[in-house]
């Protein structure tokens, strides 16, 4: 069975690797990046369906990463993760084309459902062309 190709971007190593491992167990083909720059590099090199990006990161932050990824590969669907519910940052993310904006702590099953939806959305867009 094909797996959804996901890029997980978070600067916190523990959180990122734990989540990545758990997603791997649930049949997500996952790669992870510890910074926005690293993520953008990976995006240039490899194909992904969905990227999950933490909003708050040192260096180039999640919103900037979202913006750049959308420029490089607009087809990738992006789910933003945030520890702080904020209308303003939610608006910004959605305006920049994020598929969803999810508040932490986010249940892994919920994240999987959103990932599935985002993936479906990507397929739809591809189909349209």
């Amino acid at each position, binding site marked *: *069975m*094909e*797996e*959804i190709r996901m890029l997980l971007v*978070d*600067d*916190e190593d*523990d*959180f990122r690797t*734990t*989540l990545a491992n*758990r997603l791997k167990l*649930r*049949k*997500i083909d996952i790669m992870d990046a510890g910074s926005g720059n690293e993520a953008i590099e990976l995006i240039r090199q490899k194909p992904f369906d969905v990227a999950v990006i933490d909003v*708050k990161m040192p260096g180039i932050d999640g919103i900037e990463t979202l913006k750049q990824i959308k420029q490089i590969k607009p087809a990738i669907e992006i789910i933003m993760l945030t*520890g*702080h*519910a*904020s*209308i*303003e940052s*939610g*608006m910004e*993310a*959605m*305006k920049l084309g994020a598929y*969803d*904006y999810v*508040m*932490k*702590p986010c249940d*892994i099953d919920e994240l*999987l459902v959103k*990932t*599935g*939806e985002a*993936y*479906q*959305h990507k*397929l*739809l867009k591809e*189909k*349209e062309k």
Partner: protein
Amino acid sequence: MFGLKRFFKKLLKDDTKKVEQKVTVEALRNTFTNRYLNFKTLLSTNNKVLELITDMEETFSGSRTFGMSFIRANCTAISVNMYKIISCLNEIADNKYKELPLILEGILPKIDRELQQKKLETGSELVLPLESIDKTMADHVGAKMANLGEVKNAVGLSVPEGFVITSAAHERFMKYGNLQDEINRRIQFLEPADIARLHETSFYIQNLIAAAPCPPELEDAILNAYNDLMEKAGHGFHVSMRSSALGEDTRDASFAGQYRSVLNVSRENLILSYKEILASKYSVPAVSYRLNKGFRDEDIIMCVGCMTMVDAKAGGVMYSADPGNIRHECIIINAVWGLGKSVVDGSMAQDLFVLSKKNPKIILKKEISAKKQQLVSGALEGTRLANITEEQASKSAITYEQAVLLGELALCLEKHFGAPQDIEWAFEPDGSVLILQSRPLMVSDKKPTGINDISESKVDLPVILTGGVTASPGAASGPAFVVETTVDMLQFPPGAVLVARNPLPKWAALLNSAVAVITDKGGVTGHMAAVAREFKVPALLGTSTATEHIRNGDLVTVDATGCAVYAGKAESFLEKEAEKTSLMKGSPVHNTLGNVLKYIAPLNLADPDASDFTPEGCRTIHDIIRFAHEMSLHELFGFKKDASSLEHLARRLVINVPMQWWVVDLGGGCREGMQGDTIGLEDITSVPMLILWEGITAVPWKGPPPIDTKGFFSVMYGATMDRNLVPGIRSRYADRNYLVISENFCHLSSRFGFHFSTVEAFFGEKVAENYICFNFNGGAADDVRRARRTELIKLILEKFDFWVQIKGDTLFARLERQEVPFLKERLKVLGHLVMHTRQLDMVLSNSERVNKYVEKILKEVSSFVDVSQ
């Protein structure tokens, strides 16, 4: 993951096998599938937002305690989902509604401003003297200190002098050390089961906080407040420092003993102790409790109360009620020599006094234990154990008069706060009493109190039933009122005993007016039970036979604690229900919720035919949802110029039912290789569609069947009738039934006049994925008739276990995560309703007729639906 990829691929695949079909048809099918899936997402997002709004409205008018984080989280979720709705609509409609995002962006900043204003309102003071604190300031000083301020300033009882290091101080501290991001990263996705990592993380974070520098202005503020305190108090140079967390009171949760309190702290150690208490937010039990109970880490903010250290001769804790058995009308006091802390942690032998609640002068029980040691303030710092003289050891730590005085204080506090209280107190050497803490007593914590042998009274009334489980202890008496439907809810008389078959969460809304709850089914861990405890309403669940034995209006006495129901009123042991008062109303947080709701909840766009039914006419979030919903239907099923894909994809169902039904197969819903414009029922392989069809056709519809044969875009059945109903308003839509199907899936869209309904069902391989749902949009016709019809549908669906919600002119009902056989029977009910409620507007001239039709429909349904499933 759930074969999701495969599922979607399948849903979207090119049917290469059907080479005989024209490529254009396939392209159309793809376009339609795309638009249809966007429509589905729009509908479910629409419902999600309506639920969020309802949640906010119910919270606003209810008595549940909530904080800013609740409002912020809901508003953010609404904002994000609104973007999704608009983007779905634009994908369906080829970007026709470009101005909608701008309309949304005109509203959202207004909501955001309300939230930000509030944040400043919480106050910027880093410390606050106890004199200036009352119960409304929980966001600033934490619930514990807000209550203590209330005790001092509103109730007028003696409490130690002191001040609070506020939530603003905590925020300042965390910001100064740039700690929160690091902590968030460590704490998120921790699992309570992973004990090792839990300990490691807890240790790491606590060290991080303890080692972090205190902002100089905060340090100054704390030390200055301390100096002021010493000047004012004039005695004692040490303080006790107690955690007073914010956000811990948001649910039925005690958080008891999770955070640190430090006694007898000198000036030198103030800052260190302050940091220790802040760090205790991340103690292992605190972190795992939050994880287990679903509390958000960032919602807990630690305020710290600093009060002059009391030189307690005797101290302890009292409950203004027996948490284990509320039937015992008593006040429970535990007392020790010295500091009362040893009562709290149960570390030493203690005296027990049980006083009558009716008359605290009456001592029901007294146990004096042999006390060997007492906890006292250390000479320099902290506390120490001191030996007790032999003479003192066998003596009661408090006198009879003192016990009575405490009892009276307990009653006074319970009355003021409107709920039983858990109170910490101390007697000073001069005999004066101080209240150190008063907080709501968690009667759900049924610790054995060891006083079960008190029996103030006996009941000699006829027993109606015994058994069941005590979901919320207590006893109450009142007329029974059996609740089966939402209409029953509306008629529920205040002061009645709620009797129901199932403890559905929605009945919880009645707990403000019900004196007790009895159900046939259900258990202690259910939502209703939790809310009953939170509301302190006695609840006896799972009695099996309550609805069988109890009739409306019967006067009953419910002894939830003793698991029995008696006929009549047993005056002798009825709990004096503490008056329920909402402490939230009027608080800044409550007002903020009210303010943001003004931009969210009102519905101004009801009539799709009105001239202001435009993007510009949308003034609230609800307006935008309404508009987007209506337009998505219009775009998908109301084709105007691009009468393309549906015409080619849909096949007319050839069937002996007086209406036109069109079927669109997304794949696997019909026999392979079908061609032509029509399809027979025997060609359908979609399981949910066949079941739905069974419901639609089980009882022949006897109304006037104006079969329309003019073609696809002509007005089908019913519009004429509705126009007659609503003279002067013309239907803007043709009436159509579309069935969008696949093997496991069926979606029916029907429009009759102004009413639009969808039925959707998915029967998958996994129970967790199964659902059926029903949306009914009443349109803009006649408010009263519309309400009656919606009410009628709700009444019926609730009888079949549906979760039903009405928001504005939309009814939505759902059943999910159930076995397929269970869902099948209920899907038939939906089929019947779609078919047989259409003509009812005409006849629902008064509410009595509603009941008549409910009975009629239930009778019809019972002929083909097996409810035992």
